[in-house]
């Protein structure tokens, strides 16, 4: 099926660019939610045109080599540019692993940086809300955020809400078997117990005394 391109070809296409990412820094995140832990994988692909900006941040000493110290520092910076809250409480993402491609691959727009992170989730009420924000290289960033269908049958995703650029993502989900008390409700429970004890003590003192 060899096409003879010497045959007159009328191309409707204008001069096309080549096949790699150009002027954006694609940052795709896939979240996986569990009862007490969030796991995530980020895939970051700098476009050819923005690569120098990204490289300057990674290769801090500008020696053309990404050392372990440098990629660890960069992965840490990416994580610090994330914001993660659960039911309004801030949680801290911790890096699990990071994988960096060669500089040449990134220069050609085909190098993918992979960062895995996780975060412990505080116990909470049945209906939960997780908010993930990515502010890393926001002037260049093209964001994708998605959540895997939970493996835990007790967790059911109710809604996903994003801003237009997907730099902000909210995941509302229901967690069966969770306490219906809010995290701050411990104080209320203690107060109720105190009132009940006081009332019982009062009744005990006023009980009728019988006997010989």
């Amino acid at each position, binding site marked *: 099926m060899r096409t003879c391109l010497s*045959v*007159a070809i009328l*191309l409707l*296409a204008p001069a*096309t*660019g080549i*096949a790699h990412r150009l002027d954006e820094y694609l940052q795709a995140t896939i979240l996986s939610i569990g009862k007490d832990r969030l796991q995530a994988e980020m895939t970051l692909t700098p476009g050819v045109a923005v690569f120098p900006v990204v490289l300057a941040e990674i290769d801090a000493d500008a020696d053309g080599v990404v050392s372990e110290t440098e990629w660890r520092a960069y992965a840490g910076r990416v994580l610090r540019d994330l914001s993660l809250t659960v039911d309004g409480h801030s949680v801290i993402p911790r890096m699990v692993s990071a994988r960096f491609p060669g500089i040449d691959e990134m220069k*050609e727009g085909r190098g993918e940086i992979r960062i895995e992170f996780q975060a412990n989730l505080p116990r909470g009420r049945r209906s939960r809300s997780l908010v993930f924000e990515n502010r890393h290289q926001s002037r260049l960033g093209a964001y994708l955020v*998605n959540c895997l269908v939970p493996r835990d049958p007790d967790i059911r995703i109710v809604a996903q809400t994003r801003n237009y650029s*997907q730099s902000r993502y909210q995941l509302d989900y229901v967690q069966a078997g969770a306490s219906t008390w809010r995290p701050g409700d411990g104080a209320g429970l203690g107060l109720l117990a105190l009132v009940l004890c006081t009332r019982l003590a009062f009744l005990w003192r006023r009980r009728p005394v019988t006997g010989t």
Partner: protein
Amino acid sequence: MSRLATSLLFVFLSAAGAQTIASRIASSADAFLATLDQKQRQTVLFALDDAQQRVRWSNLPTGFVKRAGLSMRELNATQRSAALSLVSSVLSKRGFEKVQQIMQADGVLKHNEGNNPMFGEDLYYISILGTPSPAEPWILQFGGHHLALNITIAGERGILTPTLTGAQPALYTIDGKTIRPLGQESDKALALLNALDETQRKQAILSYRLADLVLGPGQDGKTIQPEGLKASGMNERQRAMLLDVIWEWAGIVHETAAAARMAELKADLGETWFAWSGPVTAAPGANITAYYRIQGPHLVIEYAPQRLGGDPALHVHAMYRDPTNDYGRKLAAK
């Protein structure tokens, strides 16, 4: 004729037909392998469970992401013809035509880029995982820039997932004929969107930008939370239109396998979602510039126009998956 006799005849004819298809494919594979010398045969054959080779595919040109197997460039005319006959035997007529058009588009891109050696119809690779057989499972891979067919063959069954199709330019003209390799995928989806009422469109159209495929290369076995409009909220006509969009991928493989796959996807239809992001119109005769996704329990289809190279209507990536059965995983589990 009694119902029993009719059923027996159907079973017999089905078995005979299946054998014909399975035998035809296995014969094509044997015929291709017979054209190769020993070294070439070693290069093209892999173990069925070779995990690295299974995932050695990409939307990117082969100069960027190395493929293994034998490229069309390494084959003489007889070998190349036998290779393409094998690919053709596993696909439907339209499926093979689509593959040829994707390759042809890369030839056009090469020409358009000043004979850039990174592109062209010679840079498509064929590989075989396992031993071609009319009964036992094996995998045929064929791909290069904008194409990755991973076809698990087991008798009459042909599992086409994961498969990547794409094109740049996604619209070109040769000998006065305008060709859009993924034109039907574009037109049918837009027709479906236009067939939805306002309430349905509000559900189907996502409020955010999708810059690329979510489940492209390297994202095997993942099932993301579905979004958009559920087909259970569509009327009969709309559901038929949705199936017609799906057919553009499910119908790439040979007719017997495609029919079985469509039956599976039709049974899932109530749990299948349609989501759209981007412009809701297209110029006449042009491709859409919007992203869309169709997702069901055994299906993920993504259509993602690319900004790279200018007009997104002229550069498309698309993904077809069954997260429960990529690379025929279910067959291996049996």
